[in-house]
């Protein structure tokens, strides 16, 4: 049996988050969806994930902060940032903090699935090389 890619979806907007989570589950991903950066960090401490999808604008701990903290807990996890508002500054900051990609909403789900696949491949490659 092939293992499924383990996704962590982080977004405070409930409707968007739960819809995306169920669509991704239908594409054979293992998805845990949480509504805040805090919950996301808790989850990462307990379980191993392959790829995290994080919304940039969240109240409390925003996406970039969550990314920073998450990378310090689990360096291997690959992160895709999602945002409803284009921002050059925030995009580059995300990349500098180690995000795999920075994607604008609304995001075509097929394109997102491809990116998740790419992110997972990079994770595997880094894992095997002993990073």
């Amino acid at each position: 049996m092939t293992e499924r890619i383990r996704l962590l979806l982080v977004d405070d907007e409930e409707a968007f988050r739960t819809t995306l989570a169920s669509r991704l589950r239908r594409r054979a991903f293992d998805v845990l969806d949480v509504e805040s950066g805090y919950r996301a960090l808790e989850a990462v401490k307990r379980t191993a994930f392959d790829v995290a999808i994080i919304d940039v604008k969240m109240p409390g701990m925003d996406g970039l902060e969550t990314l920073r903290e998450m990378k310090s807990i689990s360096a291997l996890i690959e992160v895709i940032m999602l945002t409803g508002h284009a921002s050059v500054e925030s995009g580059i900051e995300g990349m500098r903090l180690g995000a795999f990609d920075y994607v604008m909403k609304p995001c075509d789900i097929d394109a997102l699935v491809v990116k998740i696949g790419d992110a997972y491949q990079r994770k595997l490659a880094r894992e095997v090389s002993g990073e």
Partner: protein
Amino acid sequence: MSYIKTYLKRRAEGRLRKEEQERNALRMAFTRRYLSFKTLLGLNDEVLKIISNMEEAIEGSVSFDMAFIRTKCTALSVDVYKIIQSLNDITDQRNQTLFSVFDEISRRIDQELTRKREAQQGSWILPLEAIDRNMTDQAGNKMASLAETRNRLGLAVPEGFVISSAAYEFFMAEGKLQDEVNRQLQQLEVGNIAQLHEVSADLQKLIVEAPLPAELERTIISAYQDLIRNVGEGACICLRSSALGEDSRGASFAGQYRSILNVSPESLLLGYKEVVASKYSVPAITYRLRMGFLDEDIAMCVGCMRLIQAEAAGVVYSADPGASFPGGVVINSAFGLGKAVVDGTFSSDLYVVSRKDPGQLLEKDIRSKTTRIACHSREGVVVEHVDEAKREAPSLSDEQARRLAKIAMRLEEHFGGAQDVEWALDNEGTFWIVQTRPLALPARSGSRQDLPSRLIDNTTLIEKGITASPGVAYGPAFRVETAVDMLQFPTGAVLLARYPLPQWAALLDKAVAVVTDEGTLTGHLAAVAREFKIPALMGTRVASSTIGTGTLVTVDADLQKVYAGKVEAILARSSESASPIKNSPVYHTLENVLRYIAPLHLTDPDGPDFTPQDCQTLHDIIRYAHEISLRELFDEYQETPFSHKMARKLVSNVPMEWWVLDLGGGIREKADGDTVRVEDIISPPFCALWEGLTAFPWKGPPPIDAGGFLSIVIESTMDPNLELGRESAMGGQNYVIVSQDFFHLSTKLGFHYSTVEAFLGERVTENYVWFYFKGGAADRQRKERRNDLIETVLRRFHFWVQTKGDTLSARLERQENEYMTKGLKVLGYLILHTRQLDMVLSDPARVTWYAEEMLGEVSTFVEVPD
């Protein structure tokens, strides 16, 4: 579990032999390299596409707004960052300087996009006498222009002062109001009118209910009292918005913000807050979003001025922005306060005076003026009835109209452009200027001729009106009367209304045209329609009562007609593009930003200035990265990545020398010794390639024409290292690395360098086949044709292909193993059979012929897709 996961598990358990670890590290090194190159070569195309998109937009062939610019710039920055990252991955971090070059460029781009204003220092109160046009930062454009009109031109302007942007910033910062505003605005969804109304109401309430800081209160009251002392107790006072950016070039913000007429002393402070809050009215937010202004850029200054008790008042345009009155100054006038005309709702008189001296009266249309607006005795304004006797009387005499036109022309001359002026006439015959701002004249290429009526067999529904905004459009009519109608207004509809109320401006994002019964071209809605380049026909008298919601109509605002159904002839003739007016803030932003993105300076890869430091734009950076990555890819001096002690020699019937290295599960267990037969290689992807390679026997070099042979001779004399037929020129050898789901094959056949790499695993998303190829012995044109030939065949099998000069890179990924296997067979065939084929590709017709031949042969061992 997959191969990788098994490996990782065993590694974690400490059960791996050192050799096994080394082999897997090597295997993953290949995959990492593939991923980096894939990013580099793939993103290069994407980035070029985005840049081309942006250039199309600036040329006017694609419409755009600020959101478009920001989205493209963000995508570009992220992609270029990834390209630089990948470049460093494959060059062992030797291109780090590219990051700092990139940082500098993206910082400048970001600056253009956000343009943060400096915090204002300075006085909270500015008397009109003390302001000039260079103080727009502190007083706002509207008040600064009025001050100019008074101080420089000596025209009559009501007395007053301005509550400055410094005061506004102080107010917004004190209660953390700006933070809350930002938070709410960020959540706005495009096109969600209901949410827009909610957010607008919340924000306005927030501001109006916030307490003014005590010092600010005192300062405002004190200035007000000074003003009253100056103008007398009986005077009426009004508050007028004067926002930064308002009335600047290309953006009039017509009617978006509030004015409060006849404010009482008790309501002064509340009035100030209401004007400030009007920044968040629905029309204002929509307008700013559409025109590309950021909220922080718009400080709301408020003017406090004497309100002229007008006998007559209205608006004058120093030129006609529509098509109705060429060469004329357009005056709309009514009895009482000018609000009636400014809003554009009530009937008003129309005068058109020639722009040329001595200003002949060209047209006069006196309407029945049943109402007038006047100051209430306590506060605010009221609508009064006009005596029956006076209704038909002209609000201005001919002489007065001419005098007013002359004033308008003076203002146009002083401010260097057509002006939109609000004026008031007092009972002593003096004209007071209450507001003056630039009037945008839409660019139009000549006037349109009326089409012969025989070409139009649609019913004419409307035959006359005023061109408030030029253009033509087609769509379903939708009558708007109440706020509920607004919520239901569909995108792409023609807005139909009795009066051109300013609040309909929020719908102009969705409407394709506007048709009203009443209204003038000098009203607010008309001005906004012009700015949004939406055709508007006003003053039709009967449109809203004769055209029903849902009726499909063609609106020809230029010729003042509305037809039933679609009139193709008219719509086709119109060459109006949907892009913003050339001088709008949005256009300038795109222009400025493209300077750091599109121009290419690094044109010569072999020149001395092909370095990271010479990169001035994002285009330069990706050009540099692409070139370096291709060099890395085809580095002929690369040594084999393993010691020959580990490898074995391949025995086969194909005339070349190959080394084989097994990383695990690629070779049959029983095979032993120094050599390996090709039959013992069991790596499935490799076997597929081999099958294709050997499907047809190699017949030796095909017969060449004289030209082909000559071009080889010339090439070899130019480069002493090239020798015809030498199998292992330039060092390096042919080798293949295999495992149970992977192989990497590198070969030099004659002058061709090919590499094929493939991974076929248990997960479709990880599958890939990668092929890159360089060289050839013939001249450049033939080499390029050879690449065309290969590309033609590979594309039939859905490979992604990129060629550059004599290099070619192709990949196939994410397909089921069966499909990937088919691709591998085709590749194997191509590798062998395109050897030296370039010599005979003397013209493009040969390419087509050979492609057909090859597809024919290929079809005998795989199925060719349509």
